[in-house]
């Protein structure tokens, strides 16, 4: 009897999980479907049967060029992530292994900057970018993305580093390792799974960031987020083309996410589940 109940529960739970997953996934599916409709089909109303045209993709590519914003997205997300790690690894190391009485407060303060509405600093940042000639430059945006994601990167790395037993680092010190050797030979290899998932998550965050990437770029440094936004023009919306552009923008990150999901899940639950 007990077994039958468990099995029935399992079936119900499985159906519920699939249902929830489907609801969450549906907008992406609908974007996909819309992208292979004609513009008239797309505005006609709800329909799950597209005519299956790839014309939108071709139009989007020839009229606006996919390759340049794609490369910008790659350069910006990878660049800003590497930059963030270069700053965050030593910072998290210091906070995890030689904490002061203010460490917790500093961490909280860093995180609190994420709670501030970005709009609040839009004007000063825009002016700074203008005055320093950083508007619509990759380097300017890379710095911006680094700064935005730095608190999360530091937090994640801090949590990973805290999991490493201090005695192992002390052993390295006794074995004659200097600070640099301790970081290179002991800390980094041990924290590598953590650093890898931080790296992946930050790529995704940077890839998806749209507030600053749209506002601080025009043509040269515009990544895929700005590429999508450019399809809502004053002439009106082109749903099918917009969907095709969106699909092309999310496809790379979706593929990356698919292949690294194990790393990501492990990374996000690290410390919480042992």
């Amino acid at each position, binding site marked *: 009897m007990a077994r039958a109940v468990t099995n029935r529960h399992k079936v119900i739970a499985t159906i519920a999980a699939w249902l929830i997953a489907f609801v969450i996934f549906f907008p992406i599916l609908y974007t996909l479907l819309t992208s292979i409709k004609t513009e008239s089909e797309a505005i006609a109303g709800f329909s799950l049967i597209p005519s299956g045209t790839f014309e939108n993709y071709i139009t989007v590519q020839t009229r606006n060029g996919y390759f340049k914003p794609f490369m910008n997205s790659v350069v910006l997300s990878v660049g800003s992530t590497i930059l963030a790690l270069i700053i965050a690894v030593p910072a998290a190391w210091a906070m995890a292994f030689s904490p002061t009485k203010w460490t917790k407060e500093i961490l909280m303060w860093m995180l609190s900057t994420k709670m501030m509405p970005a709009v609040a600093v839009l004007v000063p940042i825009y002016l700074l970018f203008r005055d320093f000639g950083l508007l619509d430059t990759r380097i300017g945006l890379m710095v911006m993305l680094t700064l935005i994601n730095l608190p999360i990167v530091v937090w994640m790395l801090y949590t990973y580093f805290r999991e490493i037993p201090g005695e192992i680092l002390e052993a390295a*010190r006794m074995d004659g390792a200097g600070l640099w050797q301790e970081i290179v030979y002991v800390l980094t290899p041990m924290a590598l799974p953590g650093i890898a998932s931080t790296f992946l998550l930050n790529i995704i965050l940077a890839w998806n960031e749209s507030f600053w990437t749209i506002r601080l770029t025009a043509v040269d440094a515009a990544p895929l987020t700005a590429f999508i936004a450019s399809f809502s023009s004053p002439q009106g919306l082109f749903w099918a083309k917009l969907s095709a552009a969106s699909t092309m923008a999310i496809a790379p990150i979706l593929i990356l996410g698919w292949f690294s999901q194990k790393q990501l899940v492990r990374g996000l639950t690290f410390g919480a589940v042992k």
Partner: protein
Amino acid sequence: MGSITLNKVSKSFGEAKVIPSIDLEIQDGEFVVFVGPSGCGKSTLLRLIAGLEDVSGGSILIDGQDVTGKAPAQRRLAMVFQSYALYPHMSVRKNIAFPLKMAKMDKAAIDQKVADAAGILNLTDYLERRPSQLSGGQRQRVAIGRAIVREPTAFLFDEPLSNLDASLRGTMRLEISQLHNQLKTTMVYVTHDQVEAMTMADKIVVLNRGNIEQVGSPLDLYSSPRNLFVAGFIGSPKMNLIEGEYARSKNAKTVGIRPEHLVLSHESGLWTGKVTVAEHLGSDTFLHVEVEGIGQINARADGEFGARHGDQIFLTPTETKLHRFDDKGLAI
């Protein structure tokens, strides 16, 4: 050479004074054990010698050289940790080779030394394994291997056996003692287990609340404890400490008598008592006896001494083995 000298070494963590002031001399080649209850500052003292903690005052000399301000790596000491502290991402071979790699030794020499150490510690077959694939005893041997390859001036052991089960602990104790006989290098060993201290040490340092209570050979401490703390801490089962009428008759505040220094009899003796618990170990029998006018007394008899709960027995302390303490707890 590996002599270590502590000059008025003190350590505070914020407000808390863990070690008020300690002077200690460790001779080259000695096996010194720091022993004491948990929180007595023995591990802190070891970490101060290692350089993993900075002293708050005083100085530390190794072979006559002041190393107080020096980093752990520059003190030429090797340490074995309680948790083994092996590098989990490296094979046994790489773990043992790590200090040599840090010393920028060439590869052929490293291979030779690792092979030698593995031979001494029976690790030759495990060199390519990761620490996670080893048993507790093997891990501890890797930690020791990592310590011996660099030929340090002294070894520091921080409760190295407390994560092992009882039988393995006995074996490892022997191995470490043998290693000391082989290498003749100074060893400083921290433990809360007085059996480890008694069996391994040339010299025991008994610590309590950051102060040294007594320094001496195991038998010194056993036969002439300087005060009540040492008397109660060294020896197993514990020394009986008796106050009151009997102590006064011996001109002392407290009289101590070890369980093995009581003569037991079924017929006659100085004290009469009732057995409350009898522990038969085969080789020995430990008796807990409620003695009239004295209180609870632990006694040790040979394995054949038949006594059970409720039996009446007679006990006579061996007069020459009595320890007398004054009202400050110091030995008279």
